[in-house]
């Protein structure tokens, strides 16, 4: 379950732990986020963009980085998603951003993922995306969707 904190009057903040050992539960943070945003009353088109981007990022944390933390900031006119993990980091971000580039092993492909489409898709569906990563330390991805 997410932790909820009102940062101030205008920003809602939620924090989700993303379990890296459980492929079945992957995506729960995105499902909850979708429900929260529906309750807030954002337009479906914006909610869909947040959902897809966050879900791709959440799945990445599970399959490439043994889990992490997803944070959600809901502001009046935008949603900010911050995904932080302590996985292996991304060696070459430019390469990782290319459609079709994937280091996922075959067992991940048999689960329906690992086509190398996630990161480019996250960029496509958001209005801003920033990747901070260091090999051996982890990855932090910040995405913004304007509503």
């Amino acid at each position, binding site marked *: 379950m997410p932790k909820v904190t009102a940062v101030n009057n205008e920003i809602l903040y939620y924090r989700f732990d993303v379990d890296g050992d459980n492929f079945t539960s992957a*995506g729960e943070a995105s*499902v909850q986020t979708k429900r929260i945003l529906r309750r807030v009353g954002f337009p479906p088109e914006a909610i869909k*963009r947040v*959902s*897809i981007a966050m*879900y791709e990022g959440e*799945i990445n944390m599970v399959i490439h980085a043994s889990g992490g933390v997803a944070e959600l900031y809901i502001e009046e006119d935008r949603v900010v998603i911050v995904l932080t993990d302590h996985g292996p980091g991304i060696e070459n971000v430019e390469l990782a951003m290319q*459609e079709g580039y994937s280091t996922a092993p075959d067992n991940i492909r048999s689960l*329906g993922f690992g086509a190398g489409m996630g990161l480019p898709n996250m960029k496509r569906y958001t209005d801003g995306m920033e990747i901070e990563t260091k090999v051996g330390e982890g990855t932090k991805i910040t995405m913004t969707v304007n509503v």
Partner: protein
Amino acid sequence: MKMSEIASILDCRVLCCEDHMNSDVFSACGSDMMSDVLAYVKNQAVLLTGLVNTQVIRTAEMMDMVCVVFVRNKMPTEDILRVAEESGIVVMTTKHRMYEACGMLYASGLNRAEAGHAEGDGRE
């Protein structure tokens, strides 16, 4: 086309959310790769797949899809059905293979009525 028509065309067993069967859907897609569904689907409402895991339902929910059809008699587990139930996603299973099932729906007019609908909110 109503989801109940899809069920009868494909001779499906409906496993979850039968109460939504009267809703209309206008298009479908078939894929075993959720990566591709997330990257290429626009406004398709029905997902036909031979992949059986929880992420199929989650992917459908993220894409605002309303129905998942498992092909080749694949049976989802209780866990998968519970996730679908919570999300209000209709789940069916058909004995037909992917190629046949897609062809049967296409031949019955699904997708064609709404050509041009696929533009959606695509952001290239």
